[in-house]
């Protein structure tokens, strides 16, 4: 029974309804996650076509993009946001779907609550109208971000048209240094290979660094596989995966659990699996990083300076460099400690989980340091479960005492479809996932993407700061 298949091959093949030719397949989607921002038009199209939901038991809904993080009370101040929530409620009732609502205190960032509820499981195909759906790949699933028309297709048929892609093995070996985390690993990969290197690929993350990661960290890694250009990313399931899922609300129980674990163990990529290519990264060499420009490839170790203008380049690369420098208000070779920040944001589907906040709280407690005067610091949990864990463990108190505002769960300042936005030309040290122009809500706002620990270090310093320095054991 020895085969040479990757997990992607096995899961993909198991879900093929029909081969449509030209490498396109009608693929069954085992879990469809829906949120308020990309679904209204899909439901509208279904109404026009007079089609209902084919498999309601496989579609789950929540609200995360527009939900305010201060007081989730209806009606929202934001009229458009309020109408989106109202529309979502109408849609879930009409189409008969399970809704993790703010009213029931069951909502949160869709890519945080899916795993928490045990909905995300190894061996599934998962889709959601959001780019960072790849997060769920951390559990050994094939998790795809999709557009509104595909949301319509899945609700109507529980299938969609997908191309079969190649798999790149990304092996991260060695051991991470102190204060270096999964976020730095993925930023390092994107910087080394460029944000388009993964186009046409699915990424399989492996190696001793990944084996040692808890599920939250693996989710951070897979979350940003799309920013590396990949269609999605995954980690082979192992005991860490099974331990996370055990006893979760939608996870199998009893005999079914035993059989599930036995089946999940078989999904892992075969030893003789064939990959399109392999990339090896020495995890030991990774340092705390920050982006400095307008795409994620423009990244430097926080301890170094903004790149100087004299790098080998063609006219286009120079233009990209100049544009970034100009927009971000930076100078060639500028020291990072001169870059002041106005806002610090820890949260998002990338780094809004309990272990992210716990890590930061531990360092704040040990160092006794506080957020710098004049810096607005937000800690936004990804779900009510994360929030409750933060409260029970004292992590929330440590963060509050240090000057962070601990908020209610939601996407918050990652993409500013809610009240949390940058104002004017504010500079933000952020644990989210994109630094494009205007991303955080202000056309002139400037975003530096980094890990939660690096955000905390910067919040304390009032400027970009390296956690290896700020939190060095003393």
């Amino acid at each position, binding site marked *: *029974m020895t085969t040479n298949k990757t997990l992607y091959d096995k899961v993909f093949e198991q879900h093929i*309804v029909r081969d449509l030719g*030209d490498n396109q397949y009608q693929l069954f989607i085992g879990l469809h996650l829906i949120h308020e921002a990309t679904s209204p038009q899909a439901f509208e199209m279904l109404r026009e076509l007079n089609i209902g939901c084919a498999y309601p038991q496989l579609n789950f809904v929540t609200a995360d993009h527009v939900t305010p993080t201060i007081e989730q009370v209806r009606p929202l101040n934001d009229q458009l946001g309020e*109408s989106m929530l109202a529309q979502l409620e109408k849609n879930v009732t009409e189409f008969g779907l399970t809704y993790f609502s703010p009213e029931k205190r069951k909502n949160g960032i869709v890519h945080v609550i899916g795993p928490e509820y045990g909905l995300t499981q190894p061996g599934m195909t998962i889709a959601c109208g959001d780019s960072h759906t790849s997060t769920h790949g951390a559990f050994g699933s094939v998790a795809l971000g*999709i557009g509104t*028309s595909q949301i319509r297709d899945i609700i109507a048929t529980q299938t969609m*048209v997908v191309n079969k892609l190649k798999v790149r093995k990304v092996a991260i070996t060695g051991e991470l240094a102190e204060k270096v985390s999964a976020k730095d690993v993925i930023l390092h990969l994107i910087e080394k290979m460029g944000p388009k290197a993964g186009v046409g690929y699915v990424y399989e993350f492996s190696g001793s660094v990944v084996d040692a990661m808890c599920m939250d960290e693996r989710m951070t890694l897979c979350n940003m596989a799309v920013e590396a250009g990949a269609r999605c990313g995954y980690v082979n399931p192992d005991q860490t995966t099974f331990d996370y899922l055990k006893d979760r609300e939608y996870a199998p129980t009893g005999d079914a659990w035993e059989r599930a674990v036995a089946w999940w163990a078989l999904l892992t990529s075969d030893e003789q699996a064939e990959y399109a290519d392999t990339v090896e990264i020495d995890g030991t060499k990774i340092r705390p990083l920050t982006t400095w420009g307008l795409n994620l490839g423009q990244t430097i170790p926080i301890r170094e300076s903004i790149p100087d203008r004299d790098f080998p380049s063609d006219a286009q690369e120079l233009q990209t460099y100049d544009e970034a420098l100009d927009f971000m208000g930076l100078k060639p070779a500028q020291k990072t400690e001169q870059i002041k920040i106005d806002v610090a944001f820890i949260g998002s589907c990338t780094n809004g989980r309990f272990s992210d906040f716990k890590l930061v709280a531990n360092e704040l407690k040990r160092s006794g340091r506080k957020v710098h005067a004049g810096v607005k610091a937000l800690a936004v949990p990804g779900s009510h479960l994360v929030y409750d864990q933060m409260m029970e463990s004292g992590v929330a108190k440590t963060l509050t005492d240090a000057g962070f505002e601990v908020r209610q769960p939601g996407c918050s300042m990652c993409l500013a479809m809610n009240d949390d936005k940058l104002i004017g030309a504010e500079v933000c040290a952020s644990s989210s996932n994109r630094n494009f122009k205007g991303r955080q809500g202000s056309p002139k706002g400037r975003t530096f993407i980094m890990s939660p620990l690096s955000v905390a270090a910067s919040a304390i310093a009032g400027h970009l700061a390296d956690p290896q320095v700020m939190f060095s054991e003393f």
Partner: protein
Amino acid sequence: MTIVDSICEIKDTGIALEANDIDTDRIIPARFLKALSFTELGNQVFYDERKQTQSRGQLHPFDDVLRANAKVLAVAKNFGCGSSREHAPQALRRWGIEVVIGESFGEIFRGNCASIGLVCLTVTRDGAAALRAFIKENPGENVHVDLQEKTVSFGKDEFPFSLSEAVRERLISGRWNIVKELLSNKQQTRTLFEQLPYISDKNINTTDAMTNKNEKITKAVEIIENGGVVILPADTVYGIYGNALDERSVERAFGIKGRKRSKPLGIVSSRNKISDVVELNDSTQDVINSCWPAPVSVIAPKKVGRIPEFFSGGEDGLLVVNAQNDILAEIVERTRVPIYSTTCNLAGEDEARTSEDLKPFQDLVDLVIENDSFEFAGTPSTIVNTMSENPIVIREGSYPVDELISKVSDVSDVSVDTKMLIQ
């Protein structure tokens, strides 16, 4: 905006955008994504850029009155990178663009274009540059896209384009509106759904799991016979196992445990195999025949000539444990050499019972088979010394002494001989 089902050609004026890496947040800024329907999106395409260009006193191509009815958009590299949101192609489509032609595109963006019938064509770098130059210089001139001929023509130039055959066929036939196509396979969809393992665990082929287990067992046997070291679940904890006749393997086991050579390792065996490693005196035979398989370990006379000196270290007695779980039992049966057995722990530390505990050992051995099917017992085995005529219980463990007494003749009281306690 009119939706035509069949798309065979587009002939109209164009707009050119020079920059690379135009991301979806620029095409449609995030704050416009709240709209519940796509109707307003057309007006909001490139909103921030157009405003900023205006404020600099310049003219953004999308604001150029001469291009207000353009249907062709010519771009450069990596157009539409960023978000999976369909709002970006929708905004372009609703503004009036019917075809985007460039050097390369964000993958999700390209997929979204296909699903809404916005034609998205890839041409060479030179072709893309020539097209943009033509459009910039000739705002009133048409660009002709022919989906059947697979060409883009403008002025005196003509370039081929690349486009997925399946997508091209769907645009031409009108089947780009995909829901109908997918709905036609309802029955196959249901059949597949019913067979998915996570839909019903009854679909899980446990023989697959068994085959997997079998493969691991075969591997373990091979490794042991070839002098390697493996970790397997024993009855209460994980154990370290290897070929008792292979000195290097035995040394590795000692090394892993940081253990003194004077404390010999045990042997794991079964009813069928025990005669290979011990002299079957009456005592030993009695206990084995009456009890095994059972968590009863014996200290029996080693088989001289079979068990090497380096293994037994001068001792006459050999501790032999009985394989309790099916993995260990299977391996014992299939391996053609005596297998040594010792608990998996570092010197002075607790024995490994969980995956977490096994982590420090992973790199030290050649194979680890984890326990995923039974609960480790809380108590270790009962040990019986069968060196002499009467069996002596050395340690009472999970096998009750009274049961032992009732089954085996002449069993003496418990006496603790610490030198022999080598578990």
